[in-house]
């Protein structure tokens, strides 16, 4: 594959490294399964299962209660149908809500204690990629300190976190980075204060279900004035069959702090559908900044639409403090069905929200994704850059809300929403909702839809690239504004994903 060729390689870069990185191409490269003994809770969901999950995580009573209330609420709700996606009815009683590697019965103290098979899994997932990237000369790599950039990783395997790296070093800086179950035990005051404060338990069907049955996820707290000394990242992996993954992430950036968080997701190839319903809550206090980047590559199903992950995710940031800032960047290439709208509540005056998105849907994939920017404070600003690519018979919908409340004087939004079609059996839809309730705000919306240009492809092919390489190059060019917003740890993986997800889309 040629993806690496599309990265500017700096002078003096070691060719061996470039080649090594290039090796990772291929079809759906994460499609293998780790054979590992699992502990399952019985299939289905009811108050006993909720209690069992809570017990497995050694949670205090208040947490169990919180979950049970959520469950009671969920039982009275109905699944939403407004999204432009279509999938067979999910039997929520036919899903495992808890699966954990047997070797994890005793929580490991450090990565050394983790089952080597698990570690092998994460190694296969390419964690960490940072050195390869620096050597391969990804743009921006030279800004890294000489000894290379560090990425602290929390790895979530099916239902449980299997280990978090660099915890000691982070602790020195005062940063708490651990699994959410550990945070519930060790930092109950923080969890109690913030959990559900951005995405209320009652928010929506999937968020409520998640509140009842979430098994694990990541927790981050950055204390006032601290610039988190390294990138934080979580890799989510669904391995076990018929298992839902319900992770919960909570990130709090206290006054004047900064953190950049990366999230990667993969799953084995299976011909049954699997459910993923995560909730992510971000809280940015005064002058704090959070960058949250996702490379979502859950198994998308095959060309005929068999199998794949249902990805129903609620992600929301509360820019609670004045001058706080949140930036969502997402590269969504996987999943059979995606339903996801990372949003910003711009509550603080002069707070800012940004959303950069690449959503690729190929074959039979369906994506309904976008963002909400809710301007509550004065002089708040938001920026939305969405690049949707549809190929095969896929349907790709951008759904976005920009809302200027009466008190959001001088609010500003700029939205750029571009769709690219490959072939003539796919669809792109743009559904912008705009509400402006004051006179001083300004909302700008630009949208384009185009087809991959035959002249561009012919030009590339005349210079020697095959059709897939040509498409990958042109599409990566189309996505450039968003790719540039990614931390370099993910930029290269994302470029490769763009190419891989479009394989077979032409000709």
């Amino acid at each position, binding site marked *: 594959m*040629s993806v690496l*060729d*599309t*990265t*500017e*390689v*700096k*002078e*003096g*870069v070691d*060719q061996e490294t*470039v080649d090594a990185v290039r090796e990772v191409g291929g079809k759906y490269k994460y499609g293998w399964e780790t054979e590992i003994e699992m502990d399952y809770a019985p299939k289905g969901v009811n108050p006993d299962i909720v209690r069992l999950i809570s017990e497995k995580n050694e949670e205090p009573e208040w947490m169990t209660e919180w979950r049970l209330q959520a469950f009671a609420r969920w039982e009275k709700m109905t699944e939403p149908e407004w999204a432009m996606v279509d999938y067979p009815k999910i039997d929520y009683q036919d899903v495992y809500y808890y699966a954990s590697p047997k070797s994890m019965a005793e929580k490991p103290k450090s990565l050394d204690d983790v089952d080597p098979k698990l570690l092998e899994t994460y190694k296969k997932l390419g964690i960490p990629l940072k050195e390869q990237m620096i050597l391969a*000369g990804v743009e921006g790599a030279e800004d890294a300190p000489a000894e290379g950039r560090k990425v602290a990783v929390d790895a979530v395997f099916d239902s449980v976190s299997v280990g978090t790296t660099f915890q000691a070093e982070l602790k020195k800086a005062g940063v708490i980075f651990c699994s959410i179950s550990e945070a519930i035990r060790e930092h109950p005051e923080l969890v109690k204060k913030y959990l559900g404060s951005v995405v209320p338990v009652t928010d929506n069907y999937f968020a409520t279900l998640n509140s009842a049955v979430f098994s694990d996820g990541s927790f981050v707290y950055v204390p006032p004035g601290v610039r988190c000394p390294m990138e934080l990242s979580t890799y989510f992996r669904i391995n076990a069959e018929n298992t839902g993954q319900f992770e919960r992430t909570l990130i709090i950036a206290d006054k004047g702090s900064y953190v950049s968080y990366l999230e990667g997701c993969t799953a084995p190839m299976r011909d049954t559908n699997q459910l993923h319903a995560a909730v992510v809550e971000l809280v940015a206090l005064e002058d704090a900044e959070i960058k949250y980047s996702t490379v979502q590559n859950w198994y998308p199903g095959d060309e005929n639409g068999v199998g794949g992950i249902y990805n129903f995710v609620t992600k929301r940031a509360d820019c609670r403090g004045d001058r706080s800032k949140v930036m969502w960047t997402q590269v969504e290439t996987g999943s059979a069905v995606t339903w996801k709208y990372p949003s910003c509540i711009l509550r603080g005056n002069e707070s800012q929200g940004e959303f950069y998105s690449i959503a690729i849907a190929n074959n039979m994939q369906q994506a309904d994704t976008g963002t909400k920017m809710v301007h509550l404070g004065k002089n708040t600003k938001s920026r939305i850059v969405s690049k949707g690519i549809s190929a095969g018979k896929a349907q790709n919908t951008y759904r976005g809300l920009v809302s200027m409340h009466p008190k959001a004087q001088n609010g500003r939004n700029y939205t750029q929403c571009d769709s690219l079609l490959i072939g003539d059996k796919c669809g792109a839809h743009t559904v912008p909702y705009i509400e402006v309730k004051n006179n001083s705000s300004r909302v700008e919306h630009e949208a384009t839809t185009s087809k991959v*240009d*035959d*002249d*561009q492809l*012919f*030009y*590339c*092919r*005349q*210079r*020697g*690239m*095959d*059709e897939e*390489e040509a498409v990958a*190059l*042109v599409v*990566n*060019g*189309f*996505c*450039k*504004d968003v790719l540039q917003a990614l931390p370099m740890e993910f930029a290269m993986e994302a470029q490769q994903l763009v190419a891989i997800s479009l394989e077979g889309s032409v000709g």
Partner: protein
Amino acid sequence: MLEIKNLHVKLEEEDKQILKGVDLTVETGKVHAIMGPNGSGKSTLSYVLSGKDGYDVTDGEAVLDGEDVLEMEPEERAAAGLFLAFQYPVEIPGVGNMTFLRTAVNAQRKARGEEEMSAADFLKFVREKAKSLKIDADMLKRPVNVGFSGGEKKRNEILQMAMLEPKMCILDETDSGLDVDAMKLVAEGVNALRSEGRSFLVITHYQRLLDHIKPDVVHIMADGRIVKTGGPELALEVETNGYADILAEVA
């Protein structure tokens, strides 16, 4: 050597014959020029040779060093050494010029079973070639042809040609839109590439370019055929008298 015999081409979408029996042989190491009135089929010939969609070959053949190019995919023709400097180079937003060049160079090398060029070698190579065409570092970084002036686009085509080192170079009006100095640069670029193993087919309307790139043979194309072939003096004749005399003579 490129041998075109009795080439007939019509549009795929409509019943319109554009090339009506082109016969043309460009020997290895030679420079041939094609002149001819607007709409006579010069660009169409270059597109059909390089494999653009939208045309049907109804008769005839085109053989490059013994290989039937009309049967190949565009990228296979490129790897076989066929290069087209476009009359209207295409813009590719978001893709750096350098990235594009490197992808192209390595794709061709791979197709030919050669080693890819190392990043360091590539950079050295591209800088050297760019310098002689007065293409600065900024133009190498910018997206392919986006916002390039007409002359910059044409120089960029020649840069690509220099990097790819093709065997058969087709230049479609690379001189149009160039100022006097740029024309000289482009001609020097072409002359620097002239060699025993490399052939050129230069499509142009003006004698000016041929002052710099001295052709071995000049053809006149009209209404989808080569109607007259001669030496460099034929280009001078066109320059002074236009096509009327030649067309009347062959009619």
